[in-house]
């Protein structure tokens, strides 16, 4: 059934369909309507869950960690400075291997104070050991939430479902509301290998020494480094799980595609624009305009940022003359994080093949600065026609 709602409601409906039983969240713009909606569902009995009010995002994640450790399917959501305040517990959740799903409604971080959209908040959490999935419209928001629980529980790794604040969170668009029966078929109840149980008490994540040691059972136990290596290895291997989720989802719901990259007019393209989130859909309009000018260009939306699908990205860009990266965030003092990650992926793989696409980066929409489609079109055309510039340019900057 198609409905018209905003992106926050799409996310809330996804969480409800997944039958999360514990919600803990602290309101922050533009995430607030999402958590309000969840509390409405619980209050009205549409959702059988406990809403635990907390005094901060740090506590929200602490509650999620405790509840997930006890075997509960949990959810939280945040934005910007709320995510930054949560950061210590974010790292704990992945280290503890808890399959928490968190919506990050992307917003600029202060200072100066700004409530509008960019993606600096989630990009700044790139190295926390969480997966990061990015959505381009409301259908992707609700579908990604559902897939995220399956992926998280299959891998025991938490997942951030990221979508653009306001541009998606507050905008009303039509999307298909999945049937509860199908969601139940796709996502079985959460049954972790171990859940906290007073009948079989255990210490979790206590001080773990640099070296391996023999444990109380006389078996060689992992040290901290082994535990952290396994998180990394499992994250890399989760690429296959993400692909499996996409396959299963498309069999049950009848929609889906490439699990990592959403490509538009890329097959015959000489140049490809690359980005994450709603911007990649707007870039389709620019690509259409440039195609009318005879420029062979396409656009790829990256749906999975961590784990980084380096093989898939490099293979998709094999033989292209250039890649133009559009980002709403950057690693201050260097360049956009996605541009760096892309170059690293290409360096090993494309160089070996003997043809390295040129990479150019643009920074856009920082702090909610409007991105007009004509600006994107001009930037893309300029990057294709002018090979001299290497440094990332900021679109719409007025100094």
């Amino acid at each position: 059934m198609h409905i018209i709602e905003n992106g926050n409601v799409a996310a809330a409906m996804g969480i409800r369909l997944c039958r999360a039983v514990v919600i803990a969240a602290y309101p922050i713009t533009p995430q607030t309507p999402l958590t309000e909606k969840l509390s409405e569902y619980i209050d009205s009995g549409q959702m059988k869950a406990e809403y635990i009010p907390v005094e901060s995002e740090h506590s929200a994640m602490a509650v999620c960690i405790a509840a997930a450790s006890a075997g509960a399917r949990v959810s939280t959501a945040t934005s910007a400075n709320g995510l930054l305040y949560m950061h210590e517990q974010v790292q704990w959740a992945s280290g503890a291997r808890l399959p928490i799903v968190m919506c990050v409604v992307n917003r600029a971080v202060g200072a100066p104070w700004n409530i509008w959209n960019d993606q600096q908040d989630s990009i700044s959490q790139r190295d926390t050991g969480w997966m990061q999935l990015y959505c381009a419209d409301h259908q992707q928001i609700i579908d990604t939430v559902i897939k995220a629980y399956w992926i998280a529980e299959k891998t025991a790794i938490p997942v951030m479902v990221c979508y653009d604040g306001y541009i998606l969170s507050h905008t009303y668009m039509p999307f298909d509301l999945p049937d509860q029966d199908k969601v139940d078929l796709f996502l079985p109840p959460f049954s972790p290998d171990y859940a906290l149980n007073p009948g079989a008490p255990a210490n979790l994540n206590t001080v773990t020494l640099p070296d391996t040691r023999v444990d109380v059972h006389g078996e060689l136990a992992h040290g901290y480094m082994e535990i952290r290596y396994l998180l990394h290895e499992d994250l890399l291997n989760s690429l296959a799980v993400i692909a499996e989720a996409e396959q299963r989802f498309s069999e049950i719901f009848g929609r889906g595609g490439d699990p990592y990259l959403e490509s538009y007019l890329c097959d015959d393209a000489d140049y490809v624009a690359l980005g994450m989130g709603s911007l990649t859909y707007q870039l389709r309009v620019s690509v259409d305009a440039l195609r009318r000018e005879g420029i062979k260009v396409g656009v790829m939306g990256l749906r999975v940022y961590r784990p980084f699908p380096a093989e898939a990205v490099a293979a998709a860009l094999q033989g292209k003359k250039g890649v133009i990266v559009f980002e709403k965030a950057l690693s201050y003092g260097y360049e956009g994080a996605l541009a760096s990650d892309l170059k690293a992926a290409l360096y090993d793989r494309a160089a070996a093949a003997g043809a390295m696409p040129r990479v150019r980066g643009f920074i856009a929409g920082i702090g909610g600065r409007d991105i007009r489609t004509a600006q994107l079109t001009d930037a893309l055309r300029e990057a294709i026609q002018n090979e001299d510039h290497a440094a990332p340019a900021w679109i719409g900057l007025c100094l």
Partner: protein
Amino acid sequence: MNRDYIEIRWHGRGGQGAITAAKIVAGAAFKSGYTGVVMAPSFGTERRGAPVMTSLKISKTKIYDLSPIEAPDVVVVLDHLLLKEADVTGGLKTGGMIVLNTPAGHETYDFPGYGLATADITAISVEAGLPHGMVNTGIIGSLEKAIGLLGIDMLIEGIEEEFKTRRPERNSLAAKLAYERTVTGD
């Protein structure tokens, strides 16, 4: 006006319900076969009474461009005093339509190059039994009279659905009366 892709910008005041009105039109458009509808409120500094904007894009195909409307086909103005406070015709396409709630006569206004539709929605809404100042359902009737896009019945259905627990008949009556009494012309 390209009837396959229409951009409507709504100017109202915080609390006046422009977002709800745009949502009702979006829902009716979707039901009428416009598979692409995008209703995007502008955000940040809304306060009750302050000028606010909402954009509505209606398309026969999925809409990929969520950026703000730059050249609307139609602007809907829920309060005539906004003409002095906001650039309501900014970017309006030549030949575009202004839908205006005003107590002043149609002939009072002169917008060269644009079409104009006027009605005293504030008075009509009170006549329909709504509290003074509630104009967001009436204006939908004026919009439909001005552009004839979806048919008034489809919009009435949307209004009654949206307001099913809050005076649905009075809200739909306001839209019907506004539809009948809206004056159009240059």
